């Protein structure tokens, strides 16, 4: 366990050293948050609510979205693709560590930094614009939100790991990863609440793991999910995570079996 903790610490230092990359990521997130904040603010001006979201709930959704994008939807997919394609992964495979555990440590370090940055950004906007901010109405909602956040983060980790593992079989896995990342952002509700979409699309998405990444955690926080439904949602999120963890492990093993590298 200690070696993973060390990997986590070193990765934090590395991420903080590459400040321009971090700044770029944050500017992107901030631009999205500001745009959508103003968009919904304008849309809700003169309306008490929209699709059951009150003014404060909708603006809190936007702020929550920035936090969820930074924590749950931040990953190392492109790094993993690069490591497999370039053969760099060989150096990890001969080390006495489990690659999934190692990748999870690095993933968590990236998420930690982005979470702090997102909290600072949201805090700054709250101080600057004084928008109404919705707080959870019960301790249960708050706790369930934290559980949903952890599950969302793990689910995205395994989903991204699965898609990135394509790099074992093709040097063109960047395209599918790009497509996956864009689809996830929309289907997870990381740009707008999924309630906005037509019922048929909502129904289709409810059979996929994507709403458990952003949309459901925020809806739990906003108290828009009843206690029974909340428990069912958390169980489903856990189930999806377990399913994709198993699939990604199987695919990883198959990938390693077909992997070969030359040179050093």
């Amino acid at each position, binding site marked *: 366990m200690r070696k993973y903790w060390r990997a986590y610490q070193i990765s934090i230092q590395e991420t903080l050293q590459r400040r*321009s990359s971090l700044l*770029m990521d944050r500017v992107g997130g901030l631009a999205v948050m500001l745009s959508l904040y*103003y968009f919904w603010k*304008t849309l809700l001006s003169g309306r008490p609510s929209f699709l059951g979201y009150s003014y404060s709930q909708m603006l809190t959704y936007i702020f929550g979205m920035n936090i969820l994008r930074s924590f749950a939807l931040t990953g190392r997919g492109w790094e993993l693709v690069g490591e497999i394609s370039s053969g760099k992964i060989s150096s990890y495979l001969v080390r006495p560590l489990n690659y999934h555990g190692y990748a999870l440590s690095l993933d968590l370090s990236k998420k930690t930094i982005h979470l702090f940055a997102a909290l600072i950004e949201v805090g700054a906007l709250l101080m600057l614009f004084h928008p109404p901010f919705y707080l959870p109405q019960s301790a249960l909602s708050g706790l369930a939100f934290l559980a949903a956040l952890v599950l969302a983060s793990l689910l995205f980790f395994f989903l991204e790991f699965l898609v990135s593992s394509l790099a074992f079989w093709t*040097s*063109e896995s960047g395209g*599918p990863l790009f497509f996956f990342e864009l689809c996830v952002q*929309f289907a997870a509700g990381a*740009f707008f609440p999924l309630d906005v979409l037509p019922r048929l699309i909502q129904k289709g998405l409810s059979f996929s793991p994507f709403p458990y990444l952003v949309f459901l955690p925020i809806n739990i926080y906003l108290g828009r999910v009843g206690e029974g439904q909340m428990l069912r949602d958390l169980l489903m999120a856990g189930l999806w995570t377990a399913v994709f963890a198993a699939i990604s492990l199987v695919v990883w093993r198959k990938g390693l079996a077909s992997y070969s590298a030359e040179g050093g």
Partner: protein
Amino acid sequence: MKKYLRVWWKMSSMSLMAQISHPLGSVGFLLGKIVRIAFFFAFIIAIFGHIKNLAGYSLSETALFFLTFNIVDISAQILFRGIYSARRAVSEGDFDFYLIQPCSALFRLSMTTFDFLDAITLLPVLVMTGQILERFSSPGFFVHCLLYFFLTFNAVLIASSFHILVAGLAVRTQELENTIWIYRDIMFMGRFPSDVYGPLFQLFLTFVLPIAVMTSFPVRAFLGLLSPQWIAYAFTLAGLLFGLSLWFWKTSVRQYTSSSS
């Protein structure tokens, strides 16, 4: 001119062959680009299922703002895709070879990669824009269309200026590879009409980071909502920015001492 067309043709054919030789990757990127536009479009249409207007604009008008943003954004990417790898070209020494070739180094750097995937993505956007423009047949339609066309071209010129400035920075510093992505990220704000943003923020998007001039002005001019003074401002700004970016590029190249070979 003929020489440049020949260089462009050669570079473009090589880019096309490279993209065809990676079908899975190319299809993934193309689908990603199309999905991004389709989802936002679906979002706008879905929103208008519940409201009549957004900041005073109808569905067609809001869609036109979104499509104009895409025209400007994608056109700049088609023209300047090579700038995205400018830092690598400088640090790996490729830029030294561009300098000794008998054509503009900026042109050579920009045209290193011609992204056919962007060109394919642009086609449906142009078709949809044409269909929406057709719906607004009113007196002065032709003049408004011309204004829309020239102001969109003007917006591409501003976007080009930003790309040239970034290329100049890459030549000067060999470090600022992320600058272009910061520009792309900030451009996200151009997806919606600038009227959505508060008055203070609108001023910022008009005078400091002229995203409003690039994505909202063409549509507002088409709808007859832009005064001649603002139209003059847009053209003057583009001219000044383009001049400044070329000057910056030239001085950057003049100070360049080669960082690799």
